[in-house]
């Protein structure tokens, strides 16, 4: 039965394709004229699955940037399109998408990824075809330490952000810390460096624990409460960090909380509420500047809310900036190429040639391996339990740190 | 008006034509028995009457009401109870819970205690074992429980499928005399039996089923003496 069905099916496919093939050339003839001036910029981030909250907003940030900042290129006669890909947080899918991306000559730049585990193998593919990649979120040192000329990132590295946190804690007179992380490449990466620097600064590390738990931190809190550290540090995202902090406060912990730029979301205040303010308060280090320093951020949040009816998640602003850098580099490369579509190599070179590009999360110049030179790092204090006041949180410290080479 | 009237009944299992036009009548107050070899269609006939098997052709009427539109659990409410082959007691429930389930179709439980008393007078053994888990009863006790449970539903027509199966001759004797008693108290009975001798002895009338059709019918006592029946079902020479 099924063989017969397939036989008929294949006959029908052949027949219909023959028809389609006759029709195709007609369509194909008119395409090239327009296609010449089409430039695509791809995004890759998890659009499905449990990491999609952040992944979708990276894409949205990039989309918003394209809509707001696409004018110069449009003025030069280019039609700039967004090509969003879903890497599902899965290396296999990411690599396959990467190969699809590099096989489309119209794509000149890639904004992505969210997971370092996906970015690292996928960027091998970008590298082989010289396609520029600006990463909005990958803090793993390996992203750039491979030294590929196409691969850049606009976020700080784990090995710096962890250090920033630890240095700040030492300044605050913290004597003992308990380090928790979320068992992701991102969170654990930061936490490891935080721990290393804390020990170097003479603080006592009373515990170092990873947990994939999202809800019930009771078991983890017993040793924390027993150790009673001055500071609990969480390497990871706000979704877990805020829940942990809330539960710790509820158990009577009075010390300080600290986290990384994954904590930068007004939802953190929604979850944690008053418990973030109580005791010795809550701090987080971040590479994205607060609204007071970067007026663009406030506008970005308003625009984002207007466009998508929700608050931007972490890395949405970085998605915006990554796209902005792609657009600017393509514009520069196109100008150098007499307003014709530039080559991928020239776009990659143009990104490295950018000087003090002002984005909404910082001012970017890239070093020889694609890290931003002297990225600004901020330590921010959570001032209010009110989520709407999140963007008014005060800066506790500002640091300019060059990434390790 | 006949208690039950089955006319030209057909059923299929997949492609197999199991019942090929069965017709039978049961009058109010009778004991009627169906005898026949294994696979002749006796159990299928019972299952068709109580709605467990879909019929494909023919009618089943209970006191002139067509049973076809009703599902198995609704037919119980019409006053037809069946004691299934292999008893089908709920092995992990207690004896009294089994009996309560028998009365599931009755709207309220006012008569429950009286009904229970009635069943216990018929089967005193069950009263002794009231709290026991049914799975731990002996085969004969389980058969009593199955019959008692069916009686709890106040059936007008009681269908019995192989009540003698797996029981010792003495127990068979006692079960059959109980069946006769139940019948005397006014319940019409359709009995399917392998043990043709016993069945024909207590039955008013009997039908002989062969490969899905009625091969013979007549009074129980007459069939007992019919040479063909003796040869085929009573082990005679």
């Amino acid at each position, binding site marked *: 039965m*099924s*063989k*017969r069905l*397939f*036989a*008929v*099916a*294949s*006959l029908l*496919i052949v027949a219909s*394709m*023959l028809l*389609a093939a006759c029709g*195709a050339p007609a369509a*194909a003839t008119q395409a090239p004229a327009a296609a010449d001036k089409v430039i695509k910029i791809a995004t890759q981030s998890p*659009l*499905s*699955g449990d990491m999609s909250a952040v992944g979708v907003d990276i894409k*949205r940030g990039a989309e918003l940037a394209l809509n707001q900042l696409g004018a110069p290129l449009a003025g030069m006669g280019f039609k700039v*399109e*967004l*090509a*969003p*890909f*879903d890497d599902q*947080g*899965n*290396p296999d*899918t990411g*690599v*396959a*998408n990467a*190969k*699809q991306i*590099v*096989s*489309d000559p119209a794509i000149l730049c890639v904004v992505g990824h969210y997971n370092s*585990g*996906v970015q*690292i*193998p996928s960027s*091998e593919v970008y590298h*082989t075809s010289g396609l520029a990649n600006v990463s909005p979120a990958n803090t*793993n*040192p*390996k992203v750039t*330490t491979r030294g590929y000329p196409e691969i850049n990132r606009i976020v700080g590295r784990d*090995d710096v952000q962890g250090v920033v946190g630890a240095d700040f804690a030492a300044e605050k007179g913290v004597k003992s810390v308990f380090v928790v992380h979320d*068992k992701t*490449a991102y969170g*654990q*990466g930061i936490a*490891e*460096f935080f*721990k*290393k620097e804390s020990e170097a600064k003479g603080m006592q590390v009373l515990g170092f624990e*990873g947990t994939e738990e999202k809800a019930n931190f009771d078991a983890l809190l017993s040793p924390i409460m027993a150790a009673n550290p001055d500071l609990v540090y969480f390497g990871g995202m706000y979704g877990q960090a805020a829940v942990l902090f809330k539960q710790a406060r509820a158990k009577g912990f009075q010390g300080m909380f600290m986290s990384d730029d994954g904590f930068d979301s007004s939802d953190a205040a929604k979850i944690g509420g008053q418990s973030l303010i109580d005791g010795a308060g809550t701090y987080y280090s971040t590479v994205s500047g607060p609204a007071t320093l970067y007026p663009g951020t406030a506008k970005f949040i308003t625009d984002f809310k207007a466009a998508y009816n929700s608050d931007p998640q972490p890395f949405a602003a970085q998605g915006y900036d990554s796209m902005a850098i792609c657009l600017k580099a393509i514009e520069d490369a196109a100008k150098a190429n007499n307003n014709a579509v530039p080559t991928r190599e020239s776009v990659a070179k143009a990104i490295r040639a950018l000087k003090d590009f002002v984005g909404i999360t910082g001012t970017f110049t890239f070093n020889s391996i694609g890290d931003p030179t002297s990225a600004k790092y901020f330590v921010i204090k959570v001032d209010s339990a009110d989520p709407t006041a999140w963007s008014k949180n005060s800066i506790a410290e500002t640091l300019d740190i060059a990434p390790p080479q | 008006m006949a208690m039950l009237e089955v006319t030209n009944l057909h059923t299929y299992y*997949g*492609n*197999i034509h199991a019942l090929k036009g069965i017709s039978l009548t049961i009058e109010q107050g009778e004991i009627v028995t169906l005898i026949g070899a294994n696979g002749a269609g006796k159990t299928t006939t019972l299952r068709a009457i109580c709605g467990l098997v879909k019929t494909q052709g023919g009618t089943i009427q209970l006191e002139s009401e067509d049973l076809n539109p009703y599902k198995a659990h609704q037919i119980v409410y019409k006053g037809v109870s069946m004691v299934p082959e292999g008893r089908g007691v709920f092995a992990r429930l207690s004896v009294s819970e089994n009996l309560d389930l028998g009365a599931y179709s009755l709207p309220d439980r006012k008569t429950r205690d009286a009904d229970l008393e009635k069943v216990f007078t018929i089967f005193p053994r069950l009263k002794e074992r009231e709290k026991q888990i049914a799975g731990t009863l002996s085969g004969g006790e389980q058969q009593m429980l199955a019959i008692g449970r069916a009686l709890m539903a106040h059936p007008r027509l009681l269908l019995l499928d192989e009540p003698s199966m797996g029981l010792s001759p003495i127990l068979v004797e006692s079960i059959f005399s109980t069946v006769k008693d139940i019948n005397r108290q006014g319940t019409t009975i359709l009995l399917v039996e392998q043990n043709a001798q016993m069945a024909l002895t207590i039955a008013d009338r009997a039908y002989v089923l062969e490969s899905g059709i009625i091969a013979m019918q007549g009074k129980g006592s007459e069939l007992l003496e019919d040479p063909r029946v003796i040869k085929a079902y009573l082990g005679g020479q």
Partner: protein
Amino acid sequence: MANFDLNKLTQKIQQGVWPIIITLAHLILGVTLVYLNPRSNLAFLLMISSFLSLYALKTPVLFKLVTGALLALVIIPVIGVRNIFYLEVIFQISVFSALALGLNIVVGFAGLLDLGYVAFYAVGAYLWAFFGSQQYYVLHFAPGTQPSNLPFLLPSDMFYLFIFLAIIAAALTGILLGTPVLRLRGDYLAIVTLGFGEVIRVLANNLDKPLNFTNGPQGITPIQKPPMPPAFVDIFNSVFGRFVGHTASVADMYNVMFYIYALVVIIIIIVVTRRLNDSKIGRAWTAIREDETAAIAMGIPLVKMKLAAFATGASFAGVMGVLLAGSRTFVSPESFSFMQSIGVLTMVILGGSGSIPGVILGAATVTILNLQILQGLSLYLSQLRQSDAVIPIINFAWKNLSNQLDPAKYQRLLFGLILILMMIFRPEGLIPAKRQKRELASDKVEVKG
């Protein structure tokens, strides 16, 4: 068309030279279209689907073999190097076909539902990831803090040895897990294997302390690829260079190489499963699948036979794990999530549990669906959204379509739907296993007799 008679048509196209003509037409048309439109997904689908014609139409076995070999070994590499995305899709189809065929031994033949199959895949992958990288030298470093410029522990040609070691390691893991749990009833087994899959993933995620074996969530990279003989690249370029259109790089040829390795694994799995299936073991599996109690009564050593199925299936996953580690040069716990196990299971169920061509079709369908169709639709939608196009009748501008509705976001929804609908309407899959048919037929005869 009014009197369209399906039967007549099928009979006609299965007779005489028609099958050969149709197959060749399908193939040639597909290849030509792909060649002319190197980035058209439809053309690619047409080319890939010519395997179906090859399978379904009645042509001489020799014709099938020669055409199939030509397609698999010459045309696909050439087309693939022309557009490396296709090569990636085909590579993933072959990887997942191999995995699905391995799981098929467990689920399809022995009827044991394994929800943690990728655990064995992970065992193979991490085996080579540890020994084929610098990980040995960073045992005492926390993830992310290790120095760079370390030597590799083993030379890269040890890759081939590790393929065999992975067979042993994965089979042993299978036996280790199977021995205690295979006595359990089917659905318990499903949950225990699910748990086991999670355990392996959590171990991979956490074995970065006290000694750093797996580098935790950061994953292990770089992992060595087996050496590529330079002659291979040169020969390919000199023979096929002008068809490809550009010189193939070493990276391209690695893709071809791993594709061919996966193909070899698939052929070996097919041979092994066919052999096993026709042997005593295969009959024992069928008996266990159909009725465990009866199988025991027939004197079949239940646990032993189940273990055999478990270990065989596991060992194939182990081999594919080594290939994965080598081809990606990167391994991290994210590749071995529960979703991955469900994906492979979906392939088996969709194609036809127990049926070798079915399972391959299932793997191809799911992979293409995931990589090409859903992504393609999302891209198309996103283009529409950026244009001024309007849906004609209801006068709805595409711009206003919420981008929450991207098809690529709803892979799980689709997988779920496929699983439910297949179970309701076609539990035996797209291409049902032949053996089941035979049994059903014999059942009927028995009853009638």
